[in-house]
Structure formats: C-alpha cells, structure tokens
C-alpha cells in the first residue's frame, strides 16, 4: 500500500513539475508558428483562359477555387480573378446569374459577391504576364494589380485547354511553359513572393511546370504529359459539363478545410487519385525549401494573420489642438455637386440629325457593280463600245 501511495505522490509531483514545462513548450510552439512559414499576407491569381459556352466548366472551376479562397479568408483586394467569358449572363444559360458546380444545381459558385478583375477579352497572355511581373501601365487601378511583397504567399490557379508545353488563351494565343518560368524568375528577382503554389487543371498540365527554375515554387497539375484531363459530370438541364474532375475533387477537399485547420500539402497531393480522376495528377516540390508535410493548406488558400500583442504604449499628455481653420477666405464658393442626368430627355427631343460622314461604297455594292460591268463587257465586248458612246 505504501508503495502505491509513494508512486501516486511521485506521479503527482512529476505532473505538477511538468505542467509549467509543458505550458512553456506550448508557448514556444505558438511563438515558433510565427516563424514557421515566413509569410505575412496571401494573394491569389485565378485565371480561366477559355471562352464559349461549351467551356462552362473552366469558369466553374475557377469560381469554385475563388469561393474556397474567399471562404478561408483572403479578401477580394488580394485576389486577381480573370475570367475569359461570362457564363452567368451568357444568353445560353437557362438559369441566368448562376454558375453551378454540382449537377442538379446543388452549389451555385457565382453567388452575389463575386469581383471579377479581368473579364472577357481582357484576359490575354500579355495581361496575365503583366499582372505577374508587375509591368502594368500607371493608370491601372489597384484591384487589377498584384501588389505582393517579399513576404507574400501567392496561389496561382490556371485552367483551360492546354497541350504539351503550352496553355491556350481565348482560342487565339498561347502561353508556353518557358514564358511562365521566365515570368516567375522575374518575380523572384524582384522578390515579389515568399512562396508560390501553382495549380493547373488542363490536359497535359504537368508539362507547364517542367521548366520552372526559381526557388520556393510548388506545383500541382491534374494530368501528366500525354494524358488528358477529363470533365466530371454534365447537367442535363444546363446542357454542358459543369466541372473538371480534378477541380471537383479539389473543391470537395477544400470544403472540409476551415481557417484553423492543420491539413497539410501531403493531403493535397492525395486529392483525386487515378481511380477517381482517370488521369494521374502530378506535383513538383524540388524547388520548395520547406518539407511539404509542414506546409499548411491555409498557408496558401487561407489568410491566417500573424498577430502580436501590443505591449508598449506612448504616454501622450498634450491636449488635442483644434484643426487649423482655413484663414480668411470664407468666400470660396464650393459648387454643389450633382449627378449627371441618367436620361437627358431634353437633349434627345431637341436633337438635330447628325451629319454623317461620307464613306466610299461598301463591299457588297462594289461587288455588285463589278459584276454588272463584267457582264456588260462580256456581252458587248470592248471593241463595240464605241457604238454605245
């Protein structure tokens, strides 16, 4: 009995001693987390590169990733969303103002809080490269710029139609993997990112990250070289395929992630194995410095802020001075500002007809006259013209 008592007392004392030690360990790990990732803000560049109604699934892919990224905390001011075509208000959309990602219209990823920064024909290879490298004209507004610094983690998501070494933009131009690798190197030279996660969901997507050579890049692709990425399910009411397989399972995975989650990159690599995706997803981590198992999903998809308690304050004793009054000139007439008339009826009613500039005759008229002249000369011949004139 004594022995047991002794053991109990010993264990109790040991517990008492280890509690503060364990607690300081906890504080240490909390402080350690401050430094573990080295980033202070998050950015996302989400690009859909294809247009036309039958490429509905690419827009739905991009909007699903946009939705997840917003839900996990990245604000609109830090997301650059590029959609090459407008599916929600497309005249072929039987349910306007919606973009669905599940068949039977279960999940509307368009919602009422979508901010598209580059739309329609603004989504070009040139604009995409300009956003990445920062070489935008000075008149570009803040929402269209990637204002990242050396402590930003950036998520880049591309989707569309691709091939071995290229990605098609807008059905008329393409971006090659070499250009993309050079753009990332330019970003690295100017320290525009701390770490970068590149996800691509196209056919032969792995070819796009083959040529990367800058540090701190991690890449994921939905299919290897020589494989096609397949789409998931058609919806019979809408009439097109709604999502691609890889992004569908990626969205399913991300719906389980919440801002405080500890899921890491190794879980992301396991998303959509070949049995579900038919294509083999690939990833590349050799340029990344940290071990993927220690990288949290929220390091890229979410925006968990590092926070410190403010310990020092400054003692301000002087009273608040009233703001400097404008001296003297109280006669400045500030004109009252008004909105422009939405429908200037007076101007429309009393409008004079516009003087139209003269244009030379259009192609059709020209062709018609040429035909008539040809037939005329054919019939009468040049030599006999003198009889007519």
């Amino acid at each position, binding site marked *: 009995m004594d022995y047991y008592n002794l053991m109990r007392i010993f264990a109790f004392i040991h517990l008492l001693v280890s509690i503060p030690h364990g607690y300081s360990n906890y504080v240490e790990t909390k402080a350690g987390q401050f*430094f573990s990732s080295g980033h202070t803000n998050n950015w996302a560049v989400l690009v859909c590169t294809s247009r036309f109604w039958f490429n509905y699934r690419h827009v739905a892919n991009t909007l699903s990733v946009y939705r997840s990224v917003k839900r996990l905390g990245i604000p609109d*001011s830090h997301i650059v969303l590029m959609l090459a075509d407008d599916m929600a208000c497309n005249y072929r959309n039987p349910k306007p103002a919606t973009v669905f990602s599940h068949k039977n219209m279960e999940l509307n990823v368009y919602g009422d809080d979508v901010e598209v920064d580059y739309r329609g024909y603004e989504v070009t290879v040139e604009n995409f490269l300009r956003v990445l490298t920062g070489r935008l004209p000075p008149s570009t507004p803040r929402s269209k710029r990637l204002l990242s610094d*050396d402590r930003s983690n950036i998520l880049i998501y591309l989707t569309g139609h691709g091939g071995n070494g290229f990605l098609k933009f807008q059905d008329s131009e393409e971006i090659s993997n070499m*250009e993309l690798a050079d753009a990332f190197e330019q970003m690295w*030279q100017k320290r525009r990112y701390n770490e970068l996660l590149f996800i691509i969901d196209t056919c032969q997507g792995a070819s796009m990250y083959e040529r990367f050579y800058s540090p701190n890049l991690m890449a994921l692709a939905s299919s290897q070289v020589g494989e096609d990425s397949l789409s998931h399910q058609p919806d019979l009411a809408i009439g097109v395929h709604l999502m691609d397989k890889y992004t569908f399972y990626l969205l399913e995975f991300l719906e389980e992630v919440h801002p405080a989650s500890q899921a890491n990159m190794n879980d992301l690599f396991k998303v959509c194995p070949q049995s579900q995706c038919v294509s083999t997803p690939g990833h590349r981590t050799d340029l990344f410095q940290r071990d993927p198992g220690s990288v949290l999903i929220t390091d890229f998809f979410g925006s968990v*802020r*590092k926070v*410190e308690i*403010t310990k020092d304050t400054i003692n301000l004793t002087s009273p608040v001075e009233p703001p400097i009054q404008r001296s003297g000139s109280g006669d400045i007439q500030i004109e009252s500002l008004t909105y422009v008339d939405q429908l200037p009826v007076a101007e429309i009613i009393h409008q004079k007809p516009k003087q139209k500039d003269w244009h030379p005759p259009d192609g059709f008229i020209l062709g018609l006259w040429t035909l008539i002249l040809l037939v005329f000369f054919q019939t009468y011949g040049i030599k006999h013209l003198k009889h007519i004139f």
Partner: protein
Amino acid sequence: MAALQLEKQRVRNAVLAIAAVVIVVGIPLWWKTTETYRAWLPYSEISELDSLQLQLSVDIEVVFSRGTLTPEQQKKVPLSHVNVKEHQIDAKTGLRYKYETRYRTATIMEEDALNQPTAAEADLSLHMLSENSCGSVVVYVIPESSALMPEDVKAYVGQRRTVLLRSPPFRSSWSLKEVLSNLDVEVEQVVSTMSFGHQDIVAALSNRVRMTKVTKESMADSMRAIKSSPGYEITFSLLNPDPKSHSLHWDIEGAVQSYIQPLLNKLAPIANFSVDSQILYYAVLGVNPRFDNSVSAYTLSADSLSHVINPVEARLGSNAASSNPVLNFLLYVPDAHHSPLYIRDHSKREVPSNAFHSPRWGGIMVYNVNEMYGPEAERPVDININMAKVMGVFLAQLRLMLGVQRTHPPTGFVLQSPGSAGLADWELDRLLWSRSVENIATASTTITSLAQLLDQIGNIVINDNVAQQVSSAVTSLQSAVAELEAGNLAFALHYSREAVLASERAFFDPSLLHLLYFPDDQKFAIYIPLFLPMCVPIVLSLLKTVSEAKQRLADKQAKSD
C-alpha cells in the same frame, strides 16, 4: 556565235549584279529593319555595382566636462581616433564600419548647460547650443560623483543625439591613452545603442543576401516592419457595431494633427505619407468573445485574434489611385451586449493596452465605453472618445510598423521618452541608416537583374526613357554609396531614395514585356517561305556562273598549252 557570247555575258552580268544588290543592299536592309531599338545602357557600371562594398561612417564626439580629467591628461586633448570594423557578408557584399571619434573638452557654455539640476534640463539646454548633424553621436562625460543623474544610472540618452555618460573611475596617474582605452568600452556601448547595430544592417540587406543565420528576434523585426517604399497610406477606421446604443464622436482630424503629424513630419525624409480616416457601422469582429465569470467581462484569447482581421478587411476601403502599401489602424468599440471586452495574451493575462497588431498590416485597439454611461441613459448614448489614449497606442504600433526597432539598452542606461514628436533623433538616425542601406541594396539588385534580363533576351525593345531611368539610377546609387562613406546620412538617404524610385520605374516600365519568345524552329518556319524561293535561283545561277568561269579558264589554259 558572237550573239550567243554576248547573250551569255549579259546573263552573267545580270546574275552578278542581282547577287551584288541582294548581298550589299538587301541583307543589311533586312538586318536593320528587323532589329529592335535598344538604347545604350551603362552595362560596365552596372556590373561594378553588382559587388557592393558599403562603408558606413559614424561621427562620434566625446566631450569631457570639468572634473573628469586631470590637468595633465587634459593637455593632450583634443585628439581624434578612427576605428574600422570589416564584415564580409557574402562573396558580393561587404560592410565596413568606420567610427571616427573626436575628443575635446567642454566649452564654457556647455559647462553652464551641464550645471542644470536634472539631466532632462541639461539635455534641453545642450540642444539649444548646437545642432548636431544627422547620424552623429555626442557623448558628454560628466564626473563620476555628479548629482545630475541618480546613482545607479550610468548613461542618460537624450531626445536628440546627445548622451550624458558618467565617467568610469580614472586614476590621476594614468596617461591619456589609458584613460581613453578605459572610456572606449563605455563609448562603444553607447554607440551600439544609439547608432546602427550589425544585425539591423544585415537584416536591411536581406534583399541581396539570403538570410541563413539570423536571430529569431531580428527575423521577427524584419517580418514586422514594412518594406521601404516611396509612400505609405495610413488609414484610421472607427468600427461601430452598435449605432443604436452608441453614438460615437472622435476628433480624428485634431488628433492626427496633434499626435500623428509631428511623427510623420519627422519621417518625411524617408517617405511620403497620406493619412485618411473612415467610420464603419455594423462592422463586427469575426470571432465570438467568451464571457469570463472571474472578471465578469468578455474576453478574446490570443489564438482567436488571427481570425479577427480577415472579415473586417473585406469591408475596409482604400485609396484606389495609389499602389502604396496601406497601414490600417482600427478602433473597435464593442456593442452594448458584449461590453466590456478585454484581450488576453498567451499566458491568459490582461493586456493593459487592449490592442494587438499584425505585421505589415496595422493594428486594432478595443475601446470599452460601458463605464461612461449607466443603464438608465437614453439610447443612443453620445460618447466622446479619448483620443490621447487611443493615439498613444496607435503611435506605438505605427512606430513598430515603420521599422523603429525596439532597443534593449544595457543596464544602467536610461532612455528619455520621445516627447511630442514620438521619435527621438537618434531613433530616427537608426531608421535612416537601415533605410539607406535597404534602399541601396534594393536598387542595386533591381538594376543588376534588369541589366541581366535585357542582356539575355536580345529582342526586348529598350526605350530612351528606360535607358534614362537606368542611367539616373546608377548615378544616384553611386552618389548614395559615396555619401555613406563620407558620413552624410541625410544626403545618402536622399540619393538612395532617388535611386530606388528610378530603378523601380525602369524595371516596371510597361514596355519591357517580351512576348517575343521565338524558338529557333519558329524563326525558320517564318523566314524560309519568304527567302527560299528568292534565294534558290540566285544561288544556282551564281554557281552556274562560277562553274562557267572555271570552264573558260580551263579552256584558256588548254588553248594556251
């Protein structure tokens, strides 16, 4: 036969003429019209800038007041002494610290100033006498038994660049050299507190040098402080989630004018600042606070603070016209049902300032108003916010955000509080040192990488304005390095700022986008259909002419034989 001969000759002449025109006129014309316009860049000077050898010179003046030195020792003063420390950071970056110390005795006016009752007043009257140049440090050595400072205080660092140092014990039999070497230890301590530290400078070079061995604290400092930028936007926001209960009034214009503007005016050499404010109604924190029975108040634990910022940030506006980094300072007044609200730190203790900040983003302060009115007050209650208390916290956070490093002075040192400007002159000097070095490092890496890029890709067009920006960046950089060497900190900062602006403008010029990635097979595919049909007849006829000429020569030989 003669006609045939003539015909053949004409043909030969024609072929030769055409070949001559193609080669002499055509090829240079094609080359000239397909080359890209590339203005001249000073590549040699840029490659010189690639290896950066910085010298930082500090001017230290040590003034001996009456009673510190014996007349014997005093004879040898004034003298000066130079101390140089070299550090090689990596293969391309080297640092040299040059400390120039001048020793002299105090003038009569300085002695009068030092006769004041307290150290603070002595500091003030010393400042009235002379203005010290940016980056210098002046040490006034006062007698060991002086009553100017309390017993245990070894040094009193004033608001400007002066420090009152209690002299260490000297023996009157010592020669001046021994006295000075004894004093040097103390002076070095002073200088390391008031002037730049090696870790700060190395952290400022983080653009050039990959950080491998840095202390956790300096890494936290480098993550917290915002990067050097030509301008900053500071936004003060008042969040009122409960306008039905509280009608808040804050005199933000006056508060900014009185408290924040002096600091910003002092920091004007570093960057341009623009300040604005906004009030947000019905803005809630994204986290539910927990009610703590022991203090009968709501508490926010330190872990949940990271999730507070994101939902709020979506509602904050910012000036869309500039791309300057934004620092947000939020004042949150909790709603009546969740008052009072306290923040707890990691060890569950109360935080006196009730505020927290996020590196490179800004700060949030929670201001409780439940004590200002009773339950019977008519809703909404008019509340005037005490701006002095609020601005005290925001000013401290602003200092941290802008990179004013926290100093840990050695024991026995007393730092005078910064006063109305919020920033002591020597703290500003520290900031100027690290900012100049950071700007120089950034500008040099930008310029060298731009030159490398333009060199590598042969078909990027280099416009005149890009070349001009690059040249001006190079000259500014050279001036900045020279001024640092000479010890003129203010000029060095000015030139380094110009260098950064010019290099950024050159690097981010919209015309420098190369979409001209042409692999070689594409180039062949373009040129062959154009030139092959033209070149084949010319080349073949040339060959024929040459073989005919050879034939004729052989015939002539045969004939003459």
